């Protein structure tokens, strides 16, 4: 009756069946004692631990703390990065001023900045927000710059000759043309945001999901530790899928 819809759901379920199989193998091998329960708690224990964490509210408060910090840093980085990247593409002196600085900081492994934000801002929220900001800034600058630089100049000239103002050319021609590259850069940046969020919280934090994982590991509550890791994995996956859906929506004007 509900033909195409039901079919879609079945197809989606079949596509994700391997995840269920992995969970079953995990459960079976641990229950059969192939792995010591101390090294790998059974999947069902992890699920129970997940619901315990959910009920106590511990998961939610820490997730909110993490995501708030990370998202703030990410948003500031995206705004600053696209502005600077566009500036580099449009204004020659901005390009010659920023290009060497970007080149110097680009190869730096961003996790090396964790002790720096510790010294500058201590253990509070600011240090993690600032780290995410720093880490996400360069990929945003570069993807905006590369996207706008790759624009066919004929497009801009045509728009100008048809009477568009400079601002209109930027808004109506250059930004849409650069959008695919900016969005690809954003996807990488989101992955970066999660990476920096978790690694900084593992090293310096008093709350947040990364802190929770480390703390459960130190206490030996491995089921809770695995549950939190799976939550972080799920958040990363959901963000990525959500972003891909948004990309499809924003780029629906393309062939």
């Amino acid at each position: 009756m509900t033909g195409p819809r039901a079919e879609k759901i079945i197809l989606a379920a079949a596509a994700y069946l391997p995840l269920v199989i992995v969970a079953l193998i995990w459960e079976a091998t641990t229950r059969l004692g192939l792995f010591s329960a101390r090294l790998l708690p059974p999947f069902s224990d992890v699920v129970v631990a997940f619901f315990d964490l959910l009920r106590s509210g511990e998961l939610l408060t820490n997730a909110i703390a993490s995501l708030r910090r990370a998202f703030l840093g990410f948003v500031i980085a995206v705004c600053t990065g696209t502005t600077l990247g566009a500036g580099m593409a449009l204004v020659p002196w901005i390009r010659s001023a920023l290009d060497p600085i970007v080149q110097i900081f680009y190869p730096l492994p961003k996790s090396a900045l964790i002790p720096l934000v510790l010294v500058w801002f201590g253990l509070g929220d600011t240090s993690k927000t600032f780290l995410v900001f720093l880490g996400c800034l360069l990929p945003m600058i570069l993807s905006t710059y590369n996207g706008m630089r790759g624009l066919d100049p004929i497009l801009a000239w045509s728009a100008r000759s048809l009477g568009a103002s400079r601002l209109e050319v930027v808004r109506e021609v250059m930004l849409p043309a650069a959008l695919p590259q900016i969005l690809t850069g954003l996807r990488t940046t989101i992955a970066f945001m999660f990476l920096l969020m978790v690694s900084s919280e593992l090293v310096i934090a008093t709350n947040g999901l990364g802190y929770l994982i480390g703390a459960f590991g130190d206490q030996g509550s491995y089921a809770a530790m695995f549950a939190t890791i799976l939550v972080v994995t799920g958040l990363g996956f959901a963000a990525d899928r959500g972003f891909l859906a948004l990309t499809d929506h924003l780029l629906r004007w393309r062939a």
Partner: protein
Amino acid sequence: MAVLRFFLKISPVLALLAIWYFATSLGMIKPFLLPSPQVVAMRLWRDVITGQFALNAGLTMYRALVGFAIACLIGVPAGMLIASDRFVRWFCEPLISVGFPMPKIAFLPVFMLWFGVYDLSKIVMVSFAAIFTVVAAAEAGTRGVDRVLLWSARSMGASRAAVFWDVILPAAMPQFLTGIQIALPVSLITAVAAEMLMGGAGLGGAMLAAGNYADSPGVFSGIAETSVVGLLAVGGMTQLRRRLLRWHPEFNPR
């Protein structure tokens, strides 16, 4: 002339250094928050002559590169297999699409639990962090090989092995290398973060110790040392790409 142009090009960096120098020597910023460039340079020099730099950078490089090499050795064949076998693809695709965007560093406590706190767990962590990118690029590269190339080689009597070595591998090489080029910085980031978490020798451990003891010259010289390692790795990778793709239009425009 060339020298002048070079200095003109790096003048923003020199300006940044000058601002740093004057801001610190005029006492506008507390030395704890931003030590002066000369103090950081002295610290760097000390690390170089005492061999601290060589030791820490060597250890970090060793962990990052071994983990990275394992990720490539497993990841490239795995990606090619996923691309060519439907069943393997069905099974692995959802695992990769979940694993690709996840912050792999979250598994660090698990690897510490399984493999201890020494080199093994750090290397496994690096491999795990790097492998998803490699697999995804290898799969996309293999699937992107022009069918016509394959058919032509087959119809001219090439064996399966010959098709693999002489057609698929070269045709997919640019994509493989792109994946590998992304995986290398990821390996370094992960190695440094793992060292920070576990402590001990290595650039990450040294920097975190400096941060915890409020030794800010140590933090800044550590960042500089890590940048050098990152620069070497990225530069080496670009050279490798140029070498392996000498024949490719990418390096022979028209």
